[in-house]
């Protein structure tokens, strides 16, 4: 019997499909290539976004507050979790 997962479980599976799984089906393999591209694009966008902020408006107060809040929160949570 074939059982179809609900759409959210399906999206969850799609988002965790990587080249590490060595997908046999061509459709899933092509999706894994797309995910691979998306992961590197995410890193590039995050880093270039920070560069663009620093190069254009480093004194923007709200931006400074946002980055301060998130970096400090992340570090505290990481240390507490470790």
């Amino acid at each position, binding site marked *: 019997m074939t059982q179809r997962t609900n759409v959210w479980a399906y999206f969850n599976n799609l988002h965790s499909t990587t080249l590490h799984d060595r997908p046999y089906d061509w459709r899933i393999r092509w999706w894994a290539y797309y995910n691979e591209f998306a992961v590197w694009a995410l890193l590039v966008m*995050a880093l270039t976004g*920070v560069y663009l902020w620093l190069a254009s*408006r480093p004194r923007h107060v709200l931006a400074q507050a946002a980055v301060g809040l998130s970096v400090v929160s992340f570090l505290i949570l990481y240390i507490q979790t470790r």
Partner: protein
Amino acid sequence: MYRWFRNTHLVAGLLAVPFLLMYGLSAVQMSHGGWFSLEPTVTETTVTVASAPIHDGRALARILMEQNRVRDEIRQVKATGSGIQLQIESTGTAYDVHYSTQTRQAVIRTSVAPFMGMLNRIHHLAGLHSASFVLDVWGGWVVAVSLCLFVLGLTGIYMWFRLYKERVIGAILLAVSLGYSLTLILLIRGA
């Protein structure tokens, strides 16, 4: 209006950036496991738990948690011939406890994941009703970062659309990306 979108995009991006880097790096680790060593650091300590022998695994776990020797979630409780064996896990850290009722001592073997292993475990955190307050705060940030991603996408598309010179190349890239991804989503679902 454009200025408001640009500021919103900037603030949402910077609010999410350490978390996005964490998601990106841990996704690279998951996709290319062989690139990183996930060998944990293992330490072993022996502690005397209480003056009277303990026969209940959960009571033993509670005492060790109160002493800050272990934390978060009990994975397994097993009675052994000489005492109790416990497996307890927190994010990136695994505790293997062997308790002897005769000596009333517990040997705690603690395995701590390295940096990339920690990022891997943090990547999987979600929800607001976890085993600890710290995990709930992580869950709160997951919600915030998810919302920031929607804001980044929408404001990014708006700002691109306002750059008249880049409409054509942007439209081509968007069409290729949507065409490729939506086609595969439908094809895989239909397979």
